[in-house]
């Protein structure tokens, strides 16, 4: 049974593959639930473990105080170390489905082409539609299909990077699964988390989904070209987001018309420069 949602699918439902427009190659990876736990080892000799030596017959109480997200956080730190050593700025892009993450990326990749090397990891439950759109811009991209999973985890990003091989000093965009709830809890090792909200959504989303806004450093308000047609207050969304997180910065833009994109590029370059080793 699948360990992610309890559905009847086998455990190997997560797939990660680099998009090659000439040759499509599906690769299976070990899902998180199937990785050997730390401290586990298989061998055929016998020795007494320290814990087992203290074991009274019957019941034993083990005071372990282990962080439940410890393994993901440990892997996230490894990803972070890799990014730091290679001067890579990794961004975790999170939002509801349909906020325009992929459109924002398409335009960004086209505009920054030749200026900054960019790599992309796409996370979706199914299909490589988004990765195919990204590949069409000429950027290197790996698609992670989480199967029934509702978010990316650090080990998936680690596995994806082995295929993607981002170069030194590059920008790595990780487009998370469209979901404003679950991805909030899982650190991927990113340098910054960027939450995207579009004006066709409710302006009270920061209050409805506070965890995501609480953990993001930048909030992009997308589709501002549609503001005249919708009942959405930019001021309200900012005010609500600030109630949840006092460190969040805001950029208003339209990935369709290009309005505000310069501010986004300036933010990217500033973030990248502060991380580049002197």
């Amino acid at each position, binding site marked *: 049974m699948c360990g992610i949602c*309890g559905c009847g699918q086998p455990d190997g439902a997560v797939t990660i593959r680099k998009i090659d427009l000439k040759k499509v190659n599906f690769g299976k990876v070990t899902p998180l639930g199937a990785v050997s736990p730390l401290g586990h080892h298989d061998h055929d000799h016998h020795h007494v473990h320290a814990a*087992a030596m203290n074991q009274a017959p019957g019941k034993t109480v083990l*005071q372990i*105080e282990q962080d*439940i997200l410890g393994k993901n956080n440990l892997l996230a730190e490894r990803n972070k170390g890799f990014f730091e050593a290679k001067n890579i700025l990794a961004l975790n892009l999170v939002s509801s489905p349909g906020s325009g993450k992929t459109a924002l990326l398409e335009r960004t990749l086209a505009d920054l082409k030749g200026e900054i090397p960019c790599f992309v990891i796409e996370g979706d439950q199914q299909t490589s539609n988004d990765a195919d759109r990204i590949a069409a811009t000429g950027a290197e991209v790996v698609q992670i299909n989480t199967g029934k999973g509702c978010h990316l985890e650090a080990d998936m990003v680690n596995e994806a990077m082995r295929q993607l091989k981002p170069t030194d000093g590059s920008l790595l965009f990780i487009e998370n699964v469209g979901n404003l709830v679950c991805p909030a809890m899982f650190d991927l090792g990113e340098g910054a988390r960027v939450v995207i909200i579009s004006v066709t959504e409710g302006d009270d989303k920061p209050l409805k989904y506070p965890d995501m806004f609480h953990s993001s450093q930048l909030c992009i308000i997308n589709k501002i070209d549609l503001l005249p047609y919708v009942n959405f207050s930019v001021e309200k969304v900012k005010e609500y987001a600030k109630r949840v997180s006092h460190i969040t910065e805001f950029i208003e833009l339209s990935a369709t018309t290009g309005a505000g994109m310069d501010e986004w590029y300036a933010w990217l370059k500033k973030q990248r420069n502060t991380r580049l080793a002197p």
Partner: protein
Amino acid sequence: MHELSIIASIVEIAEAEVQKAGAQRVESIELEIGELAGIEFSALDFAWEVGVSQTVLENAERHVNRISGQARCSECDTTFEMQALYDPCPGCGSYFSEIIKGKELSVKALTVS
């Protein structure tokens, strides 16, 4: 429904501990979960049985210590109970505060046999 992958991580921790201790199964498990940790308690309850079936945690008694959220206002230093991340300081009304309790998410103890 990330609660199921949280349960999968708990199972992983429990299986490693059971193996280290040379035990067979978990009799009871004590979890510590903060109310601001991003866990929906009802979703955790709902998913638990499915998530632990055919593992060392099947039939284990589950104790959850719920830790209520607490924050300190960065403007006036008042410490207050925080139920939601957007709760203002009851003293001065500021939203500028630091969470000091309620983000816990750990396995405290296991009783194995």
